[in-house]
C-alpha cells in the first residue's frame, strides 16, 4: 500500500518540479552566501532599493553617480526588492529574492515544454536542464533584472500559446504591463513576436486574431512606455540610445571577453545540439506553431546580441533558456523515434544517458563560471575595499569626489556615499568616451601633471587604488603617487589605497 502511494507521488511531476526547484534554489543560495558582498554592478541596485525603502521613490536624480546625473530605468524590479526588504535586511533580500525568481524558471520551462511535447518526463528533464545552465549562474550576486525579465517573457510566451483560454489573455496582459515596467528588455519579446508573425506568414500558418491583437497592443505599449521612460535619453543621444551610450572601447570589446568554446560551455553543449536540431525540425520536418514562437524569441535575442544591442550575458541567458525549451521538442522526436524502433527497450537507459551527459558537460562549465574572477558570482569587491570606502563615508567631506575604477564607481556611491567620476550607467552622460579615456589615464599615465590636471577636471582629490583596479589596468602600482609633494596616502588597508591630492595644474 505504502509502495503504491510512493509510486503515485513519484509519478506526479509537481513533486519532481518542487524537488528540482529546491535543489536549484539551495545551490544558488549556497553560492550567493559564500560572500556577504555583491558583484560590482549590484551596488547601483542596492542604492535604488534603499532609496525606495526610505522615500518611496527610486533615485532618478542621483547626486553621486558621475558627480551628479539623472538615471533612467524602469523601476518595478527595485520596488519588488524594496518591498521584501521591509521584512528582512535589504542585502539579504537582494540575495534571496532574485535567486528565487531565477529558480522559478524551471516551472515555466516545464509548462512550455509540456505544451510542446505533451510529455511529462521530457518536460521534467528540460526543466531540470534549465536550472543548471551555467550562464544562468553568472547573475547570482548581481541583483540582475535578467531573471525577472526572463521569467516574465517566457511566461508571456506560454500565455500566448494558450490564448484560446480567456484567463491566459488576462494573464498575458498583466504580465506585459509588469514586463514593460520592469525592463527595456521587453523589446526582445516585441521583436520576437513580430518575427513570429513573419514566420507564420512565410510558413503559411493561420494567424489568430487574438495573437495579432495582443502583439499589436504589446508593440504600442512597449514603445510608448519606453519613450516615456527614456525620453530624455532619446532627445540627448537620438537613435544611438539603443547602444545605451556605451563607450566605444567597451562596445568594441563586446565579444572579445569570451571565446566560442567558452560560449559553448556557458550555454551547455546538450541544449545547443538539441535546440539547433529543433530549429531545423520545426521548419523542415514537422512544422509546429508552438515551436515557432520560441524560435522567434531566440532569434530576436540572437539578432539583438549580434548588433550589440543587448548585454552579452543577458543575450546568452535568453538564448540558452530558449535552446533548453527547444531541446524538449528534439527529445520528443527522439523519444518517438526510439519508440518506433527496435531500441525502445533501452528507452530508460537512453534517457539516463542524456541526463548524465548533460551533467557531465555542465559541471565543469558551472564550476568554471562560478569561480570565474571576471564574470562569476564570487567576483566581488574585497572586504578591504569595502572597509576603505566605509572609512571614506565617515571621514571625507560630503562634497568629495573619489576617483575609482569604472566597475567600482557604484561601490563608491554605495559604501563611500561620495561622488564618483564614472560608473557603469552610461546613459545621459556627454562625452562618455572622453570620460573613460580620462579615467583610464589617471591610473595608467606616468605623468603626474597629466593625472593632476585630469583629477582637477573632475574636481576629484581622492584616488582609490584597489587590487582589482591594478589587475584591470595590468599595473603594479600607480606610478606617480610616490611624490610626497602632491600625493598623500590618506588610508590604507591590506592592498587597498586611498590617496589624497591638493595639487592643481593651472
Amino acid at each position, binding site marked *: 500500500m505504502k509502495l503504491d502511494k510512493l509510486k503515485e507521488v513519484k509519478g506526479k511531476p509537481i513533486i519532481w518540479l518542487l524537488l528540482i526547484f529546491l535543489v536549484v534554489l539551495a545551490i544558488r543560495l549556497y553560492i550567493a552566501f559564500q560572500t556577504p558582498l555583491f558583484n560590482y554592478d549590484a551596488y547601483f541596485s542596492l542604492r535604488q532599493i534603499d532609496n525606495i525603502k526610505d522615500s518611496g521613490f527610486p533615485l532618478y536624480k542621483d547626486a553621486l553617480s558621475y558627480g551628479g546625473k539623472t538615471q533612467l530605468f524602469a523601476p518595478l524590479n527595485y520596488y519588488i526588492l524594496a518591498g521584501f526588504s521591509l521584512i528582512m535586511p535589504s542585502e539579504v533580500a537582494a540575495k534571496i529574492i532574485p535567486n528565487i525568481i531565477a529558480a522559478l524558471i524551471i516551472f515555466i520551462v516545464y509548462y512550455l515544454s509540456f505544451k510542446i511535447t505533451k510529455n511529462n518526463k521530457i518536460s521534467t528533464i528540460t526543466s531540470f536542464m534549465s536550472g543548471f545552465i551555467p550562464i544562468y549562474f553568472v547573475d547570482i550576486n548581481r541583483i540582475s533584472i535578467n531573471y525577472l525579465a526572463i521569467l516574465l517573457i517566457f511566461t508571456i510566451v506560454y500565455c500566448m500559446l494558450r490564448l484560446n483560454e480567456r484567463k491566459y*489573455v488576462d494573464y498575458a*496582459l498583466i504580465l506585459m504591463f509588469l514586463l514593460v515596467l520592469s525592463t527595456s528588455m521587453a523589446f526582445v519579446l516585441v521583436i520576437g513576436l513580430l518575427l513570429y508573425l513573419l514566420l507564420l506568414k512565410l510558413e503559411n500558418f493561420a494567424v489568430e*486574431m*487574438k495573437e495579432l*491583437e*495582443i502583439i*499589436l*497592443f504589446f*508593440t*504600442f*505599449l512597449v*514603445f*510608448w512606455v519606453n*519613450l*516615456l521612460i527614456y*525620453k530624455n535619453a*532619446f*532627445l540627448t543621444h*537620438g*537613435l544611438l*540610445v539603443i547602444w545605451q551610450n556605451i563607450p566605444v572601447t567597451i562596445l568594441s570589446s563586446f565579444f572579445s571577453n569570451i571565446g566560442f568554446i567558452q560560449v559553448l560551455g556557458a550555454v551547455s553543449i546538450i541544449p545547443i545540439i538539441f535546440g539547433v536540431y529543433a530549429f531545423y525540425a520545426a521548419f523542415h520536418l514537422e512544422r509546429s506553431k508552438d515551436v515557432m514562437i520560441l524560435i522567434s524569441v531566440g532569434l530576436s535575442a540572437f539578432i539583438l546580441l549580434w548588433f550589440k544591442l543587448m548585454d552579452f550575458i543577458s543575450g546568452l541567458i535568453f538564448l540558452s533558456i530558449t535552446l533548453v525549451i527547444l531541446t524538449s521538442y528534439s527529445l520528443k522526436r527522439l523519444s518517438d523515434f526510439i519508440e518506433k524502433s527496435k531500441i525502445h527497450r533501452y528507452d530508460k537507459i537512453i534517457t539516463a544517458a542524456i541526463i548524465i551527459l548533460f551533467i557531465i558537460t555542465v559541471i565543469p562549465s558551472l564550476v568554471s563560471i562560478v569561480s570565474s574572477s571576471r564574470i562569476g558570482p564570487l567576483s566581488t569587491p574585497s572586504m578591504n575595499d569595502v572597509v576603505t570606502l566605509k572609512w571614506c563615508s565617515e571621514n571625507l567631506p560630503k562634497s568629495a569626489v573619489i576617483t575609482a575604477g569604472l566597475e567600482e564607481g557604484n561601490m563608491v556611491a554605495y559604501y563611500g556615499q561620495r561622488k564618483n567620476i564614472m560608473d557603469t550607467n552610461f546613459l545621459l552622460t*556627454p*562625452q562618455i568616451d*572622453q570620460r573613460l579615456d580620462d579615467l583610464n589615464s589617471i591610473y595608467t599615465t606616468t605623468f603626474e601633471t597629466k593625472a593632476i590636471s585630469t583629477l582637477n577636471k573632475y574636481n576629484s582629490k581622492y584616488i582609490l587604488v584597489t587590487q582589482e583596479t591594478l589587475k584591470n589596468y595590468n599595473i603594479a602600482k600607480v606610478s606617480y603617487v610616490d611624490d610626497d609633494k602632491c600625493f598623500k596616502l590618506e588610508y590604507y588597508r591590506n592592498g587597498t589605497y586611498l590617496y589624497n591630492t591638493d595639487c592643481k595644474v593651472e
Partner: protein
Amino acid sequence: MINEKKYLVLLVLLAGILLAAPTLIRMLNHNTYIINSEAYNNIRLYNQGSSNYDSLQGHSIPLNIINLIRLNDAARQVLFKIVPIILGLLTVILAYLVLHKQNISEKTIIAIVTLMIVSPIFMYIFTDYKVYSFVIFLNILGLYLLVNNKFMFSSAIFAIIPFIDIFSGIVTLILLLTYLFSSQKHRTAIRITGIVLTVTIILSMILNTYYGYNILHLFRFNLQNILTDIGANIGVSFSIIILTIIGLILLWEDGWRTLVTYTLMLIFIVASVFNDTMRIYMNFVIMIYAGFAFIYLNKRKWSIAIIKKTTILLIICSIFFSTLVYTTKIVRSEPTPDYVDALNFIKAQSLPTEVILSSPSNGYLIEYYTERMTLVDDSTKYYDKAKYDNMSVIASSRNLERTEKILKEYNIKYVLIDQEFQSYLNEKEGLLFIIQTSNKFTSIYKNSKVEVWMYTG
C-alpha cells in the same frame, strides 16, 4: 451635411489652436520672436529683394517667385506671421474636401485630417514663413481643382510650384505620376497637368541655371533623424509609422497597379529618410494610410474588448505625445530676448564684412539679426563643403596657427557660444581650449544664454 460642416469647423479650430499655440505660449513667456527655423532665412532673403543671389552669404539661391512680390512693412509682417497659419487652415479645408471626393467614409476623413493636423510636420510648415507652406497649400489646391475636373486651373496652380521651389516641383510630379499609376480617375487631367508641370520644371531649371544656380544643390540627401518622439525637427511619430504599415497592408489589392504604386511609395518612403522635402510630402501621403488603419482598428470587432480600448488609447496617447514633444521643443527654442540682445550687440559692434562663427542650426537666426555673414548655416554644407569642414577643424584643433589661419581666411571676428554650440565645442575640445589659453580672444558679451568672444589676434 450639417454634421460634416460641424466636423470641418472643429478640425479648422483644432488646426488654428495647434498652429497658434507655440507662438502664443512664447508670447505669454514674454518672447515675441519668431521660432528659430529656416523662416529667418526666408524672411532675410525676402527683405534683401534679390530672387537669385544671397548677398550676405555670397552664393546663388534657387529662384523663388515669392521673393519678387514687393510689399510694404505691414503687409510683410502679415505675410511672415499670419499668411502661413491661414494657408494651414485652408490646407485643412481643402484636404477635407479632396478626401470627400474619394468615396471615403466621413469617419476616415476626419481621422486622416486630424492625424494630419496633429502631425509635427504640419505644425513645422504652417507656424511661420516657410517655402513649404506655399508649396503644400498649392499642391492641395491643385489636387482639389483636379478632382473637381477643373484641370486648366489645376495645371496653372501646379505650374507655379517649380518657381517657388524647383525640387518640390519634381516631387509633386513624381507623386502625380504615382497617382496616375494607381487610379483610373482623372487620367487625362493628370497627364495634362503632368506635362505642364514637366515643362515648368524644365523652364525653372533653365532660369535657375541662367541666374547661376547650380541645380545639383537642389538634391540634398543625408541621413536624418525621422522620429519626432526622439527629437526630429521634420519627422513623424513612431505610432504613425506602425499605423501606416497597417494601412498599407489593409489597402493592398492584388494586381500590378498596386504593386507598382507600392514599389514607388516604398522608394519614396526610403528616400524621405534622407531628404526633408520628400519627408514633408510623405507626411501627407502616409496620413491617408494611417487614418484608414486607425479607423479599421477602431471599427473592427476585436476578440478582447479591453485590448481594443487600451490599444486605441495607447495609439492616441503616443500620437499626442509626439505632438506635445514637438510643441514643447519649439516653444523652448531660440531666440529668447537675451539671445537677441547678444545678436544686436554684435550688430552694433561689428563691421559689415566681419564674419561670425557659431553653430549651423543658429546660422539663419544670427544672419537675420546681425546682418552679418556667418561661417556656417544650415545650407553651407550643400553650398560650400570646404567651409563646413573648416568649422569642424576650428572646433577640434588645438593648433593655434592652424586655427588662426582659418579665422583669417574667412575673416571670422566673433565666436558666438550658446548652449548648443557649447556642447559641440565641449565635445570637440579644440576651440574652447584655444580661447581659454591663447590670449587671442576677448570675451565681449555674456548673459545667461550666450557668450560672445572677439578674435583679437
